[in-house]
């Protein structure tokens, strides 16, 4: 790696410093004062404090050895609770981990072999932190949103499938895009169930010839409706779509959603979906209803942000402001394309307008990518 990534900042004017920390990626100066120093060498692992209070702990890990080191916090059962890899010789990193009460081992692994000297630490007390409770509530609220959105998709898909079964092409075309809105707004969560997503949302272009014979889901019906002008004989795909969505619904109650990895990272994934699939018009190759999906993706990401916003505002007010501004900008731009209850056909959106949409998505996607890091602070 290039030398002095952190010290480099010191050479820059004070004004730039604060700007850069506003960009995120800062492990938090506040914690640094209470950080627990860990000194790793090629054959030792020393921790400055062995009794720690429960809650968020920052380990300041200094690698004074000659090999690249890895730092792990091991649970009482020996499994890894959290780890930090690639700590270069001569470098120090801040590593933040949330520790409930219990006995842990800290492992320093020179050469990153997963083996090395350990230290026992004891964590006691109640994890404090208003933040934690707010995040717990956000996660619970998000789960309700996921359930509601899936219910909405199932209800609308039922109507869509009815029209498909009657081979009422016009009606089915009308109901197609709305049936996907709930799904598109919670897609990253739905994608956690890797087996359902390809069954309901695979696009023909993404399938190998061997996979094509098992193709099912929304896009199969989309192609039949818009390309063939008939869904005769496709009834079973309608039923299967509802069945698959039903399986997903059955799994939701047991789902635990994490504010960082599922919510914040999921919101970023939703914008990625827009940036790679919708802005290019690849998602709805036949129906050109991309803007409906686009809006649903943005709405889903915004829901996450709104639930996490109190925490974001406290930890990084500038990020909150950027997100507010950029969500508003995307929404204002989308509004221009509203038509009736939906949106204009994406094939009528010209090159320069698509560029404007892409710019707005990038403008939102970049700060959104920092959400997880800020929430995790």
């Amino acid at each position, binding site marked *: 790696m290039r030398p002095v990534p952190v010290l480099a900042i010191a050479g*820059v004017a004070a004004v730039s410093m604060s700007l*850069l920390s506003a960009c995120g*990626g800062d492990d938090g100066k506040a914690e640094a004062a209470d950080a627990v120093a860990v000194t790793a060498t090629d054959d030792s692992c020393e921790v400055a404090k062995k009794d720690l209070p429960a809650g968020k702990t920052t380990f300041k890990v200094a690698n004074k050895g000659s090999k690249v080191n890895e730092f792990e916090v091991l649970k009482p059962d020996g499994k890894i609770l959290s780890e930090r890899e690639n700590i270069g010789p001569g470098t120090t990193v801040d590593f933040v981990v949330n520790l409930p009460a219990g006995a842990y081992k800290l492992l320093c692994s020179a050469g990153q072999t997963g083996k090395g000297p350990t230290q026992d630490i004891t964590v006691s007390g109640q994890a404090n932190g208003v933040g934690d409770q707010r995040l717990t509530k956000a996660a619970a609220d998000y789960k309700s949103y996921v359930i509601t959105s899936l219910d909405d998709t199932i209800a609308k898909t039922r109507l869509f499938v009815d029209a498909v079964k009657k081979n009422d092409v016009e009606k089915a075309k009308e109901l197609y895009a709305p049936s996907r809105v709930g799904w598109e707004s919670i897609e990253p969560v739905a994608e956690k169930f890797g087996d359902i997503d390809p069954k309901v949302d695979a696009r023909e272009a993404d399938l190998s010839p061997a996979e094509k014979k098992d193709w099912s889901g929304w896009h199969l019906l989309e192609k039949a409706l818009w390309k063939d002008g008939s869904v005769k004989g496709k009834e079973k795909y309608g039923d299967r779509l509802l069945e698959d969505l039903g399986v997903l619904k059955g799994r939701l109650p047991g789902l635990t959603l994490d504010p*960082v990895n599922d919510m914040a990272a999921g919101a970023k994934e939703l914008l990625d979906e827009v940036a790679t699939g919708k802005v290019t018009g690849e998602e709805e190759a036949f129906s050109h209803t991309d803007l409906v999906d686009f809006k649903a993706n943005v709405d889903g990401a915004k829901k996450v942000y709104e639930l996490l916003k109190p925490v974001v505002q406290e930890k990084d007010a500038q990020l909150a402001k950027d997100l507010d501004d950029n969500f508003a900008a995307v929404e204002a731009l989308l509004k221009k394309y509203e038509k009736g209850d939906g949106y204009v056909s994406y094939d009528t959106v010209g090159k320069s307008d698509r560029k404007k949409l892409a710019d*707005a998505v990038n*403008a939102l996607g970049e700060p959104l990518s920092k959400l997880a890091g800020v929430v*995790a602070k």
Partner: protein
Amino acid sequence: MTEAGSEGREGAAEGTALGPSRRRMLGFGGASLLVGAAAGVGLDRVASAEEDRSAGGAIAFHGAHQAGIATPVQDRLHFAAFDVTTGDRAKLVRMLQEWTAAAAAMTAGRSVGHGAVGGPAVAPPDDTGEAVGLPPSRLTLTIGFGPTLFEKDGKDRFGLKARRPQALVDLPHFPGDNLDPDRGGGDIAVQACADDPQVAVHAIRNLARIGFGVVAVRWSQLGFGKTSSTTPEAQTPRNLFGFKDGTENIPGTDAALLGRHVWAAAGDGSDWMAGGSYMVARRIRMHIETWDRTSLREQEEIFGRDKGEGAPAGARKERDKIVLARMRPDAHVRLAHPDSNGGSKILRRGYSFTDGSDGLGRLEAGLFFIAFQRDPRTGFIRIQQSLAADAMNEYVQHVGSGIYACPPGVQEGGFWGETLFK
């Protein structure tokens, strides 16, 4: 058979002579065997001088002038022009401050912010990382502001209209222009030059990323093979037509010439531009295939120099005195020469480019022309107008265009464009 045999003998005879002897047969009569011999010696000396400079050193970011103008020309270019997508002046200034901090770090060979690794695992890294482990590679980043930053569609978005320098004119239409609106203009341009293309690409990529929400990339161009030198001791590089190009360029070390022709002064009419310069960028498509089918005599006459040595018409060595009258009236060098343009001189930093093929099987290639001057009206515009009669126009077409006011250098603690926005 007879003809083939005869050609073969001729070829063999040439092979025993000094290097590219076809030039001697078809080129200007003045060239001789002696020229070829002298060139061989000169090349060795020049090549070693180049190597000394090509180590991965860092070029100072701060100073009276922006780096990347008088700086010895590096090997690679990544040029990008941006549209400002916000109407919020404070946001724009904030981004310029962030850009400046990132530019200072990257030109010194450091990563942006907290680097590519070592930050929180759940957040994307501050730096994209593809330059980790690479030397600074003489990276320079040079910023310029386009006319549309000052006024766009009749709107004074940032309260800058009154500060638009008179010299920052809208370029007129030049005969033969076939400008693609998607490859021109832009509110802000950044020229990234480095000896390693990855370092130049990394720099633009990080700036684009920092800028999301404030600016959006409008167009960009990668360049290789510098086509002009700002160091007279170095060998003059060749353009894609195979000719040495830029022999008469302004040396970056000649303070008097730079002061006269390149650096804007306070008295020129725009205080904030004092110490800055005006950049003109043109994407010039070269019709490579038809050029390659052109006889050497024709090529040399069009250019006004011989192809092997780079000597001006009727002379022997590259730096021999140019006698314009010996050139065709429509020769490129003759029309571009200061003597044909009331003494106008510009500092050129062009690069060759190729973006693969154009769909018709033709090389999508040419010259990404960059010129710096104190005043484009008496610099690029004057010269380009005189090039309307250029015989080379049959083989080139200007397809992209931009003009930008490049502010003076950044002082420690300052930021790009500070003199404009303060």
